[in-house]
């Protein structure tokens, strides 16, 4: 019985550590996916001149981690009531792993998306892509370290509790 109890406590600690670290890991994945997604949008907008809702739908298929947000944006645009900036803002609210700074970056891009000639769109998207990549790089360094630390600390706490109880 003691052994089973110890395993349960240890398992719970590992699970809790992972759960607490999940948003940190997810933020890194999201930011990297957004950087790639913006890179995907550049030729779609600049070269193919694909209508924005179609380009976003294509991006949703290419980047499954962003599909919920991107599909939400295209659905809102299809209702023909709001602008792109508002649609992004509403959709990104659902993504809790992102920080205000990340949302600000994507929101600034959304406000200008589709509103100018291809050359300006290209410059704006490339700049945003570089900024998001930079933030993603920082997040990979800091957030992943923090995620590993959280996991280790909670797992070790669980282990310490087991040792004490035994």
């Amino acid at each position: 019985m003691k052994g089973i109890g110890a395993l349960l406590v240890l398992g719970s600690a590992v699970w809790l550590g992972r759960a607490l670290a999940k948003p940190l890991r997810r933020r890194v994945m999201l930011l990297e996916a957004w950087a790639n997604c913006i890179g995907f949008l550049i030729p779609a907008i600049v070269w193919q001149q694909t209508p924005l809702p179609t380009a976003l739908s294509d991006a949703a298929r290419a980047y499954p981690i962003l599909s919920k947000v991107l599909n939400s944006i295209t659905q809102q645009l299809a209702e023909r009531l709001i602008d792109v900036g508002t649609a992004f803002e509403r959709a990104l609210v659902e993504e809790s792993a992102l920080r205000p700074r990340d949302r600000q970056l994507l929101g600034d891009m959304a406000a200008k998306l589709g509103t100018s000639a291809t050359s300006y769109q290209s410059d704006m998207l490339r700049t945003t892509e570089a900024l998001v990549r930079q933030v993603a790089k920082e997040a990979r360094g800091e957030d992943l370290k923090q995620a590993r630390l959280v996991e280790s600390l909670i797992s070790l706490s669980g282990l310490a509790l087991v040792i004490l109880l035994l």
Partner: protein
Amino acid sequence: MEPWLFLPPTPWREAISALGTGVLSRLEEIRFRVDVPVMLYTDRESIQLTHEGVPVIARGQDIRRILAILVDHSLYARVEELRQGYITLPGGHRVGVAGRAVWQDGHIVTQTDITGLNIRYARDVNGGAKVLMENLRRRGIAGNSWVIVAPPRAGKTTMLRDLTRWFSQAGWRVVVVDERSEIAGPGTGHRGFDLGPHTDVLEGWSKSEGILTAVRTLGPDMVVVDELGPEADLDAVIKARHAGVEVITTLHGSEQNGLAGARLKRLWQSQIFDAVVFLGRSPGPGAVVGVWPPAPWGRDGIAL
């Protein structure tokens, strides 16, 4: 209700949907002008758009939002159209855009500070071509290359569409050079208006390039092209005629002004058309108000 009426967002959409069917069935244009009430134009009157009894006024930001929605938030794909002062919507409906011109290196590159939008409904009317055909045959005009001349809103494009369908259904291989996507009115990847089974559409091509490409690569019996513009367009039409291809085209103008227009004069003098057809708005758009038989036995029997 016609789907085009739902193109503007709320609150204009609600206001339009609340109109009676009598007005809706006759509606031709919706005009948004900054800071004044939105106006609706039917074939015989203009009406203020109201919502719950209050006139609906469009502000600058509203007009920007409507334009963004009309172009699917993709202005980057419409810069050339915007430069020329219009946007074509799926279904061939045209939006005239009024704003401040942006100049670069001596040329207008786009418009900004948009202050007016004129959403104009593209109608598909059957039967006009048959009537025109009978009219021309009665006058002894056997050829099928015509210039259709009319003032704005007199039904030139509608007539062109019906003629395209008529010839195509009669087995002619027709190529439509549709620079502004108004004749065919396609949606993304789909056909718009019925233009018959033997019609190809060169959408978005400049008229001169489109005509020459059609003749070179698509083997048409007939080329249909709307609103000839600069000299290059006239040159391309003349080349197509010399290649043995029938051409039906349109020009802005009226019978009263006649040969005062340089383009009509040049086409007339080139003797490559079988007839010049003048359309008017009375008793309704598409009414044939005059026909000039082929030069040089043309108007008043004077060789030109």
